[in-house]
């Protein structure tokens, strides 16, 4: 609350709306968890701009503040210092529809797949106002169509616990997209899946992105996934969390899984890996060697 007041009150607030029009903008943002002795700097001064309709991936080791950036942009947490703007407005105040998918499917177990996916239509304006009138007609058809697009046709009356992990994750993706968000946040949504399901869902995700064209921010620790899906990859380092590289992915779309084995693709992921490995803060030598070996 106080942050919003500070940002909107004095000079920097209004001037930002006339900025070059980046859809998401982080300006010198820091974030610390905890207080006093147990303070953890999750993110040091970070600036990031994402253009409208872009697909950006954040990669890095655990604890590098990837998810923190995601939560800051969604407004789930507030920046300790600095500003986060979405569509030129302070985050939280912006009239932008946001969709979010998490590492766990986080479906509500008391609702059928249909009702789970329809949840955003019940909550998010402008759908919210029409929910009662359209939930058995237009909205239902909309949900069924999206479920069919991810290969879940005929499952809409099942409960989440009757489905496999991959199916739940598909449904979770549908839920994050059903209200046609301008901004889509993906927090390692494929992390808990087996490789084949994951690769299949990459293609599904790519197709969904090309049809709906939301601005996507994907957090992942899978470099192949980042290179397959994103237009731009930001590499992050841990302790303290910061962005150390920002590179464009040049591969044409639609990308296929077999492309991920081509030399260009491999050299890109290899380059990214080098960034991450060399950015690790120095530790006691033998421990690093032992820990590094299995990878």
């Amino acid at each position, binding site marked *: 609350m106080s942050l919003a007041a500070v940002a909107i009150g004095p000079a920097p607030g209004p001037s930002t709306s006339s900025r070059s029009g980046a859809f998401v903008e982080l300006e010198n943002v820091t974030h610390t968890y905890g207080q006093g002795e147990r303070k953890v700097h999750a993110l040091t001064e970070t600036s990031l701009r994402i253009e409208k309709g872009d697909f950006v991936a954040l990669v890095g080791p655990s604890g590098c503040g990837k998810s923190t950036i995601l939560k800051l942009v*969604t*407004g*789930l947490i507030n920046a300790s210092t600095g500003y986060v703007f979405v569509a030129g407005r302070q985050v*939280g105040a912006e009239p932008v529809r*946001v*969709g*979010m998918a*998490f590492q*766990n499917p*986080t479906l*509500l*177990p*008391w*609702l059928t797949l249909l009702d789970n996916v329809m*949840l*955003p239509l*019940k*909550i*998010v304006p402008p759908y919210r106002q029409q929910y009662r009138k359209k939930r058995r007609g237009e909205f239902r058809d909309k949900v069924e169509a999206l479920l069919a697009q991810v290969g879940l046709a005929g499952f809409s*009356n*099942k*409960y989440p*616990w*009757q489905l496999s992990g991959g199916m739940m994750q598909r449904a979770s993706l549908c*839920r994050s997209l059903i*209200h046609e968000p301008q901004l889509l*946040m993906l927090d390692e949504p494929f992390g808990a899946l087996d490789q084949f399901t994951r690769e299949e869902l990459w293609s599904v995700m790519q197709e969904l992105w090309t049809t709906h064209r939301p601005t996507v921010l994907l957090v992942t620790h899978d470099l192949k996934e980042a290179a397959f899906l994103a237009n731009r990859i930001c590499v992050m380092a841990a302790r303290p969390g910061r962005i150390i590289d920002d590179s464009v992915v040049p591969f044409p779309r639609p990308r296929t899984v077999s492309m991920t084995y081509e030399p260009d693709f491999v050299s890109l992921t290899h380059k990214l890996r080098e960034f991450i490995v060399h950015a690790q803060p120095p530790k006691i030598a033998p421990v690093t060697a032992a820990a590094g070996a299995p990878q």
Partner: protein
Amino acid sequence: MNSQANRRIASAALIIGFFVMWEVICLAFGIKDIVLPRPTQIIYTLVDRFPAIWPHAVQTLYETLVAFAFGIVLGVALGVLVGSSRLAYDVTYPLLIGFSSIPKVAVVPIFVLWFGAGTVPAILTAITLSFFPIVVNVATGLATTEPELEDVMKAMKATKLDILFNVGLPRTMPYFFASLKVAVTQAFVGTVIAETVASNRGIGNLMMIASSSFDVPLVFAGLLILAVLGVGLYVIFSLIEVRVTGWARRNDEFALG
């Protein structure tokens, strides 16, 4: 497939066996009915004096159900308050626990002082006994809601009320129904205590009068009615529970709708 039928038969046999044993032991040791009446005597008394008993039973059931309804409203309201606000938790919880530790028999005279003997003190006593488990369970259910589920809602910019109605309360239903089963039996206890102390109607009053005239079979008939009413309400809420919270048990019948 037959295992369920077998289980039912076994449990029915055990229950019937319990009463048969009771009967047999009373007969074998020649226990007088003023000490412990036989099940057949109790049932005979119940049937024989049914016209005199049933208005009392209706009175008790009426008081219990009214109290239970109020107890649910009060319990859910307090539970939502305690479960969703840290401050309310800190303030209300010690008060609630202190209040629920008071023996309710001690409270009945106060209610009688305020409202006179009869229906009102019985209902109030039953409310004080039945709302507490509901508060505790609803509060626990809300307080243990997974933060991830709330994040799903917050990412959609849902209001606190949206989160309560779409995540908090549905998620709390299994806890709520578990507490209802405790609360409904507690409501009976409260009603009967108040009737025993200060009323001229109800099963509690009937049993008190019967015991003071050493009509022990009638006392036991009263107990039997209470037990049957309690089991009946318990069964009703169990059935509703299966319908509403089948998802929590991953019940396939629930899934079939």
